[in-house]
């Protein structure tokens, strides 16, 4: 086990390196010189030249990359070109926000998806099954920013139950924090809920066909005990591993959700960075999310390995 994990971590490093090179090259080919963008309304060639020098934008690409990489290795993500604030600090402020949204989204997805999947599997072929499946499909097909807009329209504008955007840190006010994060988490979790529901349903269907279930039924055990003790426990394994994988994908969804609800999170940081040509920000953020993604994959695989042998019995 340990050697497996170490091997995976070892492979992750060149992958991350590759990610950073890819992102770096992509950004460098983006039109829109940040030095010019920084120069703003006034246009003074001396200023632009100085800014280029200050941010090493006039150096050959490999030198720029080398400098950046050197900083990263020492834990220094550099300064945001636009605001001169340390990027590490920005990440420390914004990543927890997105993580909170993602975790809440996964919790909601599990709370909704698993029972729905169970119902669909147990009542297979009936109207309940089709109903749940169609709703699940709709959940996958809905554009998250539209869902966000609709929820804002209903719950914030019309009913006034929730704020229409913004974020309050948990430590500032737990109640306000939940009020601001509930709708976005709901939006973020919708697609995930649909996926969890489908996985649960198909996993349960697989398990329900198994011999030991028939045996348990034949033994006369109450249906509920059969479901909970045998079927559920064994179906949850693939669901858990799949869910951990999708946690990594939530970042794409977070980009849109944070935009709609105006939440200062990680996803919004990427979009802002791309639009303001703040190279340093985008590089740092993509590297972090890639690292998180690989970490999530690793955890999912480990979870699978740990949970699987226990299946027999």
């Amino acid at each position, binding site marked *: 086990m340990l050697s497996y994990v170490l091997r995976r971590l070892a492979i992750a490093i060149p992958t991350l390196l590759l990610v950073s090179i890819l992102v770096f090259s992509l950004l460098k080919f983006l*039109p*829109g*010189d*940040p030095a*010019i*963008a*920084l*120069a*703003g*309304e*006034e*246009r*003074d060639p*001396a*200023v632009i030249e*100085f*800014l280029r020098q*200050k941010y090493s934008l006039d150096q050959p690409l490999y030198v720029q990359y080398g400098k950046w990489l050197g900083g990263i290795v020492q834990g220094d993500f550099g300064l*945001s070109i*636009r*605001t*001169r*604030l*340390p990027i590490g*600090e*920005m990440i420390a*402020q*914004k990543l927890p926000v997105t993580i909170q949204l993602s975790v809440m989204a996964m919790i909601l997805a599990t709370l909704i998806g698993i029972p729905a999947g169970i119902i669909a599997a147990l009542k297979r072929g009936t109207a309940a099954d089709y109903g749940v499946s169609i709703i699940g499909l709709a959940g996958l097909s809905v554009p998250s920013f539209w869902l966000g807009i609709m929820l804002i329209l209903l719950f*914030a*504008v019309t009913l*006034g139950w929730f*704020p*229409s*955007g*913004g*974020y309050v840190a948990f430590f500032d006010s737990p109640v306000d924090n939940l009020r601001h994060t509930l709708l976005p988490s709901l939006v973020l979790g919708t697609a995930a809920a649909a996926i969890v529901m489908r996985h649960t349903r198909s996993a349960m269907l697989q398990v329900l066909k198994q011999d030991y279930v028939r045996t348990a039924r034949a033994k006369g055990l109450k249906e509920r005990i059969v479901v909970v003790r045998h079927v559920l426990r064994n179906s949850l394994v693939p669901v858990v591993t799949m869910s951990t994988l999708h946690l990594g994908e939530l970042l794409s969804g977070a980009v849109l959700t944070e935009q709609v609800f*105006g939440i*200062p999170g990680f996803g*919004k*940081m990427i979009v*802002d960075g791309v*639009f*303001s*040509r703040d190279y340093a920000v985008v590089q740092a953020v993509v590297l972090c999310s890639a690292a998180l993604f690989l970490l999530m994959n690793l955890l999912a695989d480990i979870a699978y390995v740990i949970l699987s042998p226990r299946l027999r019995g």
Partner: protein
Amino acid sequence: MGTQIKLAMMATAIAMTFTSAQAANLRVGMQDDPDALDPATSGTYAGRIVFSAMCDKLVDIDAKLEIVPQLATAWTWNAGGTEVTFTLRDGVKFQDGTPFDAEAVKFNIERMKSMKDSKRKGELAPIDSVTVVDATHVSFKLKSAFAPLLAVLSDRAGMMVSPTAAAEGKEFAANPVCAGPFKFKERRARDVISLEKFDGYWNAAAIGYDTVQYLYIPDSTVRLSRLQAGDLEIAERIAPTDLGAVRGNPALSLHTSPGLAVSHLMINVGNSEKGGALGKEAKLRQALELSIDRNVINKVAFAGEFTADNQMIPPSSVFYDKSHPAPARDIEKAKALIAEVGGDAPVVEITYENSLADGRVAQIVQSMASEAGFQIELVPLETASAVERYLAGNFQAYIGNWSGRADPDPTLYSFFGKDGSQNVNKYGNPDMDKTLGEARASADVEQRKALYAKATGIYLTDLPTIPLYHPNWFYAARADIGGIAIYPDGLLRMTSVKPAK
């Protein structure tokens, strides 16, 4: 003994809740996030809003755009208008305790003139040298007579930062220190900027809040709804289409002012390859102007709340030229002018930043101008690409947004002067240069008015750009906030703002 301690603790607790209940916090919703918070390098409008609470300037403007004292209490010009001596306010300290004196003023001006990435060099170029007369008197020697100097010093170029904080090697923007009513507390990028009351402010009695927070909320609808919900006390730049909601809500009050800004369609007259027929032929530009109806643009895109106009300077300015009213829409005349020029149907490519406002304006212009025979193509770009093309002169037509200045010189000279910083379409007219040069050298208001009227006539004939409208400023605030006065520059001045109880 125990009871005494308990009573003491209770008293302290009550006192603490009492004081914390008194700690008044003002939350302002902003449309943009400022760039680096250093008056020397800052280029964003949002930065100016934060500075108006944090950094005092030598002079300020009032509602009529007249110059009033702030850190300087009086000023005298010499006979030729080439030297001005300021009397500085006594007993002023920077937020870190450094005393404010003539040496500090000299330090600041020289810093802004010499700092490598200073954006104030152009504005301060007319200043030749700064001399310390004594602790409270400083004198500026100019290269030649320059009437707009005081107006320049009423903005970022006149903001004084603490010499201690701006010393060599320090990253000033991460921890700015000035001499305004509020001092910097913390900043979370693209989220919130927090300031707290500076007790040592020379006008501390006028400060109405203990803390101010500027929250970055780019969506104007969300800004308004959070204001309505009580999450904010003030929201700036309310969308014109939302004003009905503000007016109809008794819990909110609307604060407006005509603005200095102008939105204009700049034509690339200087580059024949990029400008095409439109750039070459003044008649085509006139035809374009005649094919659009500025009032329709104002009504459709901005619910009629802005000011449709054909000039770069707003009607509220004393230098506005009333003798050149905006022409009404005349499709037939436009078609005739196009026919006079001859050739194929003129193609116009309009480049612009992909904002909702500019997008709407562009589509309206396209729709209207096509009736006269123009073939308009729209090229929306996200900000960085758009700004790059603009500065490089890489466009045929560009929707520009200029935030405006208190004095007409920075606007007209930047756009129409031979080496103006905004003259990206390389417009050149020696008559214009001469007129503008005379206008900036004269201190006589009537004479300047006549000269600027002449300049306006010149650019309205040449049409290097077609001004479309002047945005007006709309701030919405909770009705129980008092002392909000918005001037034509649209900045929220914090000193007079206090809870109206």
